[in-house]
């Protein structure tokens, strides 16, 4: 039985909008993440998913509730590209890292950017910049990596490449990952566990275990097992919610 790396208890977030109404963004959220576990938080848009991830990362404060992470090193990758455009790939990845040059080169190889060390990220694709952000996170040895909807603006082919990259890195490094998404396909493909979340207010409504092999391949997307997981999630959303999830073709 793996140890909890992060535990969230009765977390709520509310704020007052411009008109003066109190908006309940997140309500009574409790869940836990184990060591070496890939967890997705699957939710419709505007459900407070990003706020939840920022709260877990310590970048925002909750209104009520507690987060237990016991001084774990948590790294947050935002949905928009966060690589620094004034630094080249090598400097971006080694930014604030204690790793030596050789170790950084290994990380660069791991995220598929070997040969691009001197390139600057501005004007590069979002997939390229995500690889840099991922590399920078890995170069700082995180215990928990929080990734917020990074694939929204990627082409299908690039997205699939990044799925494989992310899952392979997870298998290799065995760091815990929390992945926020609105996309059922990527949630199933990447995760070991999925928390389904509704909106207005944001609440966790279901916890699902994904029974797929540790090593994932794209052919899996066509498998019956994958489709049944997908149908199961769609049914939950249909039955429990009226809100729609958008998803990409498999």
């Amino acid at each position: 039985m793996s140890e909890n790396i992060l535990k969230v208890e009765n977390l709520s977030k509310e704020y007052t909008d411009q008109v003066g109404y109190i908006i309940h963004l997140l309500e009574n959220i409790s869940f836990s993440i184990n060591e070496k576990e890939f967890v997705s938080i699957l939710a419709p848009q505007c459900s407070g998913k990003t706020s939840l991830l920022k709260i877990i990362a310590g970048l925002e404060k909750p209104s009520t509730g507690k987060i237990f992470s016991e001084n774990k090193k948590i790294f947050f990758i935002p949905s928009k590209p966060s690589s620094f455009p004034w630094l080249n790939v090598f400097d971006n990845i080694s930014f604030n890292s204690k790793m030596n040059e050789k170790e950084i080169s290994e990380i660069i190889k791991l995220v598929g950017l070997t040969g691009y060390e001197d390139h600057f990220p501005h004007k590069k694709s979002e997939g390229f910049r995500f690889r840099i952000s991922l590399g920078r996170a890995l170069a700082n040895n995180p215990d928990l990596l929080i990734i917020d909807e990074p694939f929204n603006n990627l082409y299908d082919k690039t997205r699939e490449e990044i799925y494989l990259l992310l899952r392979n890195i997870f298998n290799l490094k065995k760091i815990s990952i929390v992945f926020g998404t609105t996309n059922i396909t990527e949630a199933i493909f990447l995760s070991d566990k999925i928390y389904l979340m509704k909106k207005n207010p944001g609440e966790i409504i279901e916890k699902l275990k994904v029974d797929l092999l540790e090593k994932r391949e794209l052919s899996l997307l066509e498998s019956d097992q994958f489709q049944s997981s997908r149908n199961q999630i769609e049914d939950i959303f249909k039955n429990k919610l009226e809100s729609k999830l958008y998803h990409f073709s498999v």
Partner: protein
Amino acid sequence: MFVNNLLKRNNYNLILSFLSAIIFVYIILFEFILPINQILPRPSILIESIPSIFKDYSFVNNYFFTLSIIYLNFIVSYFLIKVFFPLIFSISIQFKKLEQLFLFTNYFLPIFFIFLFNIWFDNSIWGEIIFIFALVMGLLKTEIFCYSKKVKEEYIFSAKSLGLTQKELINKVIWKSFQPQLYKVFTKNHFLIWTYTLFYEFINKSGGLGKQFYLSTKYDDLVVIILLVTFLILTLFVFNFLMKKIKIKFFFWENLDE
């Protein structure tokens, strides 16, 4: 649309072609068709007069005087703003509303300060140096106030995740985000700063190209005015070109939310 695209693509070629056409028309019109007139001097007289602006008007000294006051101020103020950036940035976050006041003072008040500085500093060159320095610093500071809340939050989140302290965050991330925007202050206000400098020197009469403009208008020396304007256009053209090259080389990224 077509003209816009052409302008974007071949900006310098277009300007050069336009200037060449004007010079050609000027030579034909005033050298051969209207050699005696009250509008513009003959091109041949202009060329003959070039040595006199160096000899009688000590053009070289005055030219480099104005040039150094403007561009040394650019360099000094840039490095000073770098030193004081954390302080100005922190103030700008807390007193955001001062932005409107600064916008007013930067573009309107300098005209009055030209007169005041002329009285306060009389003919000292320090008056001009301090005036231009204050003007450039004011423009830079206003830019920080205007854009202080537009630093991309994804950079801030990443930096905080990496465990940067507040000081490191400002120096390593926010300052770098601001650099292209601050450099833009120089390119955007290049003509404005030249105009204020020449105006200051014109009124002050202690030195610089502005003083030469003053003397040439005093003696109704149309030839010198035309030559000075020509040198001025060439200077601005060259420095604009150089400043664009510096931007491409050192401040190539754009990363503040517009």
